């Protein structure tokens, strides 16, 4: 009898944990199911290759796709070199002193700063102080700043995994410190760095709050793509279609389609990162 109750309670206890895991997976399932089942019907070649028409109630989403691609590119061009250089400084050069500790604390805090505050900072710095106006470049740089702490952290972790014996090997044949980093450390850490970079960019591509006031536009006639002009972006497009459009019910299929395309873009980037990491781990063993 005693044994039986024990078994029953074991099942209940185990079941509680299993249930919470199932609920979490259920959330993921609902999100993906809803977006895929309702967005798939909007998805067509025309949808991704045509520009929005008739007050965005018809046509495709080419303009926001181009906008998001360009925006992510600017983010990458800005954040990758700065992020990697900063990680190199912290891991290869910095001594353990108050300055280094301050920089590390700053990075940790920056990664916790809400994205809307980055948006305000981009507005104050790029749009107003530097007079870029609301533009592709201002929004891209804002996202670049937002991405910086993530790239630094992931790159530094990748650099940390390179054993010191690698550095010694290069120094022992007469390489300078910079040559050691450039020719041996970075190539060895490449896959780790790449994984972090791709994950960060996938995050940046889906961000909305930082581009709200720095350059994203409700609608742009014709093609966008000028650095100094406003642009359309997928996440902002979805936000507008689902809350601000005058005929919300009419554009709902387009909103679902946009959400699906956005999710596909983000998942593809994530899969790329998983793949790099998987290949790297396999090579390591």
């Amino acid at each position: 009898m005693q044994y039986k109750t024990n078994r029953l309670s074991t099942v209940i206890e185990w079941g509680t944990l299993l249930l919470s895991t199932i609920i979490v997976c259920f959330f993921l399932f609902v999100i993906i199911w809803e977006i895929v089942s309702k967005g798939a019907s909007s998805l067509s070649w025309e949808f991704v290759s045509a520009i929005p028409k008739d007050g965005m109630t018809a046509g495709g989403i080419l303009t926001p796709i181009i906008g998001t691609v360009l925006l992510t590119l600017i983010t990458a061009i800005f954040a990758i070199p700065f992020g990697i250089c900063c990680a190199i400084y912290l891991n290869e050069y910095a001594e353990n002193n108050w300055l280094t500790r301050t920089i590390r604390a700053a990075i940790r805090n920056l990664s916790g700063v809400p994205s809307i505050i980055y948006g305000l900072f981009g507005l104050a710095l790029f749009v107003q102080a530097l007079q870029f106006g609301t533009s592709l470049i201002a929004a891209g740089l804002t996202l670049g700043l937002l991405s910086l702490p993530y790239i630094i952290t992931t790159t530094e972790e990748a650099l940390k995994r390179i054993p010191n014996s690698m550095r010694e090997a290069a120094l022992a044949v007469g390489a300078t410190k910079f040559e050691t980093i450039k020719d041996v450390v970075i190539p060895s850490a490449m896959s780790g760095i790449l994984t972090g970079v791709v994950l960060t960019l996938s995050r940046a591509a889906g961000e909305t709050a930082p581009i709200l006031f720095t350059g994203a536009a409700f609608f742009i006639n014709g093609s966008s793509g000028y650095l100094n002009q406003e642009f359309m972006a997928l996440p902002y497009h979805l936000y507008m279609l689902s809350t601000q459009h005058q005929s919300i019910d009419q554009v709902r299929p387009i909103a679902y389609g946009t959400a699906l395309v956005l999710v596909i873009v983000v998942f593809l980037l994530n899969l790329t990162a998983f793949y790099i990491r998987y290949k790297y781990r396999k090579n390591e063993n």
Partner: protein
Amino acid sequence: MKYRTRISIDKLFKVVFKATGMLVLALLGGIFAMLVYNSISFFLDIKPLDFITGMEWAPTAKTPKYGMLPLIISTTVVTFGAMIIAIPLGIGTAAFISEYAGSRLKNILKPAIEMLAAIPSVVIGFLGIVVLSPGIANMADLPNGLNALNGAILLAIMALPTIITVAEDAIHAVPNAYKEASYGVGATKWQTLRKVIIPAAAPGIITAVMLGVGRAIGETMTVLMATGNAGLIPTGMFDSVKTMTATIAIEMGEVPYQTTHYYALYAIATVLFFMTLFANIVGEFFINRIRKYHAV
């Protein structure tokens, strides 16, 4: 390359690398300076105490009112609601992944959690409008379901990956010797989990929760889209709320530069900045305790 050139390049890059390190300091300093400068401009017009304790947020009224209490309460209610959902689910899932799941199940669950983390907030907000809102409206017999409950559920979903990942790390880091000692005196797996593993991992779990709180407080798009944005003090989970982040997002686009209202939004951002900073510092405090503990 000549030796001289190589040395010059070496020295040059040392400076370049260091400069990028300084850039990070400049960035945090810049954000801080921006917040402080604009907040001071605001507090020249409005008394700080009136701002923090004012019961009404109506900056566009005839006599503008800049009381941010409704916004703080809204943010708190939504965040609190999100944590009530996310903490048990998150810890339960973390414990399941770490202690019960086999390696094959782990290899499915962990990427699933990462996928959940990767979904853009605007997509989650969109689903709050099209799925959750009609659902809540039906169940509670309301005209629409854009309210605090909706926002809390969505924020819980957004905070879950953070909580699960960090808590799982903490549980996983509990030394095997503890578990073996517990099994050794005849404890069951569940007793070991509750009486040994969870207490040992507690600081890490608190860190996980605080990071989740920080994430929820600072999240903009989901609450902006799903909570209805009424600037009143909410009385329950079915009331529409307007959080601090949503207020900034909505009003910054419409307000003329360098007016009191404009500065007011920066003042909100300053409060927001310190709230998330506080959550993160508390989280870090506990993670450092773990590190010290494991170092010994």
